[in-house]
């Protein structure tokens, strides 16, 4: 069983505020999902390499050239708050 503290810890790591009821239901759901995926832990896969990407491509480079990019106006158009050419956020810390 996943503890309440573990769920709260994950939520803190993920920068996610959870309501009291959400913590409770997540504790139960996370426990059930982890129990289900637990079947993997019993397999002996020592020595099997990991797969990160199933269609292997590597070292795909492009020329390091200047190209067109979005204007400041376009970039800021969706921002919740902007001031003098910067994203504005609440007090830090």
């Amino acid at each position, binding site marked *: 069983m*996943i503890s309440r503290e*573990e*769920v709260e*810890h*994950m*939520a803190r*790591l*993920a*920068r*996610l*505020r*959870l*309501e009291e009821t*959400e913590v409770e239901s*997540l504790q139960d*759901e*996370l426990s*059930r*999902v*982890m129990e*289900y*995926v*637990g*079947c*993997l*832990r019993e*397999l002996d*896969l020592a020595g*099997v*390499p*990991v*797969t*990160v*990407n*199933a*269609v292997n*491509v590597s070292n*795909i480079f*492009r020329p390091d050239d200047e190209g067109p990019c*979005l204007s400041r106006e*376009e*970039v800021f*158009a*969706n*921002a*919740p*708050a902007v001031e003098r050419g910067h*994203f504005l*956020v*609440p*007090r*830090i*810390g």
Partner: protein
Amino acid sequence: MHRQLSADISWSRVLDRGPALDVYHLTAHECRRLLTEGEASSEELTRLFLNRIAGADRQVQAFLHVAEEEALAQARVADAKSPEERRPWEGVPIALKDALCTKGMETTCGSRILKGYIPPYDGTVVRLLRDAGLVILGKLNMDEFAMGSSTENSAYQVTRNPWDLDRVPGGSSGGSAAAVAAAETPWSLGSDTGGSIRQPASLCGVVGMKPTYGAVSRWGLIAYASSLDQIGPLARTVQDAAALLSLIAVRDPLDQTSLGLPRPLRVPGIVQEGVSADALAGQERSASAVPTPAPDDPLSLKGIRFGYIKEYLGDICEPGVQRAFANNLETIESLGGTCVEVSLPSVKQAVAAYCIIAQAECSANLARFDGVRYGYRATDAADLLEMYTRTRGEGFGAEVKRRIVIGTYVLSSGHYDTHYTQAQRMRTVIIRDFQQAFSGVDLLMSPTSPTVAFRLGERMADPLAMYLSDLCTSPVNLAGLPGLSMPGGFADGLPVGLQIIGPHFSEQLMLDAAYAVEQALNVSVRPAPVAGGAVDGAAAADAEVTP
């Protein structure tokens, strides 16, 4: 009796010419023929589909956003050109999953956290479609951030299955599948991370294809799990799916994992001469100049070896699905294909590996939604940290939060090796199993979904039951293979999908085979809902629910 839409709409009234035709017969190829032969203008076709949306979508709820003005403007651009100037698919309407960024058109990914977001750029596939002159009708509903198998996780609305309005369309590309099935668009784009194109295609009775990982650029697709995500077509026929894939399968410098296809795609069953020659749209963009030669007989499967996956036989699938699949095997053999049983022992653990990998990647990808640069921001936060946590807590829905927490858990210190690394090793085992299988057969087959469309709400209380909807599809993503779902028959009046899986970059062979099966089964063009015949009169544009 299922609740169904009536199949209605006389478009002779809209076009004011020719005999009444059923809107369901307006495949993309048929739209293109009408445009090429001057029988309809793009504006007429666009209005026809907009009318259909206005009527049918009140029940189906597939569209999050209908771009009426932009669509009509684009259609008029196409109509202003001479037939010689017009590109092959110019003026043909399409609709897009809302996970695809569309410049100047709201893109929410089904999430409250992106409400009102207007992308400043087009995703690569969107740009390719605009370059080809297609008319974008609007954006389609989906599970929030593509996380789900029923489209019920959308923050905005519940999309219904056009075959039975009390059932789900599947997901996460449920809007994309339902809109095609309800003839609100000839074709659409979706995205597939663990089955999100194929499973809704199966449940809605349409064709859907997840290409080989890397065949299509993911630039401008809002990411769920980047090592699994792939964009692909949904359509009512295999030919349409092939043509749409040929338009978007392009190597793109903006996505370093993108490769395009090694050869241009040939649309199956079309003789490469005369008007049909430019069925090879997109040819100029491919690495090789010529497609693989067409089979001598496009209706034959002679010489093709099919493997049916042993692990998906029996009680894993409900009886109606088993019967349809058995019937599909008989059809394939009757067309000259050989069918043998193939074992993929690791698929049993694949859903577990998929859960871990997809959710780990999602927890990382969704870190970008922080209320700073775009999207929803919680108001009146005392400091930055509170702004982050409340923005995300209020902006994300329950399933997204669940997956972020699971993903964070399997990546966290102490769990990383036992869960995440182990799942990545399992991924290698799954790939090896598929390689082994493909050493003996050309293509693999299974039911796409263990069940037909389930009832709205039925699986919402049980996340695990929902995850198991992807039982037959998610191993394909883990291995990066192409997978296609096509209508394979019906069970209790609801569509059953046949899944075809091929080796990497075997899209042409898969589409050729699917075309032969489709022609033999003759179920693809069967309209959803079943009620046939055009209803006369302009009022017919309003679809009615029959009891």
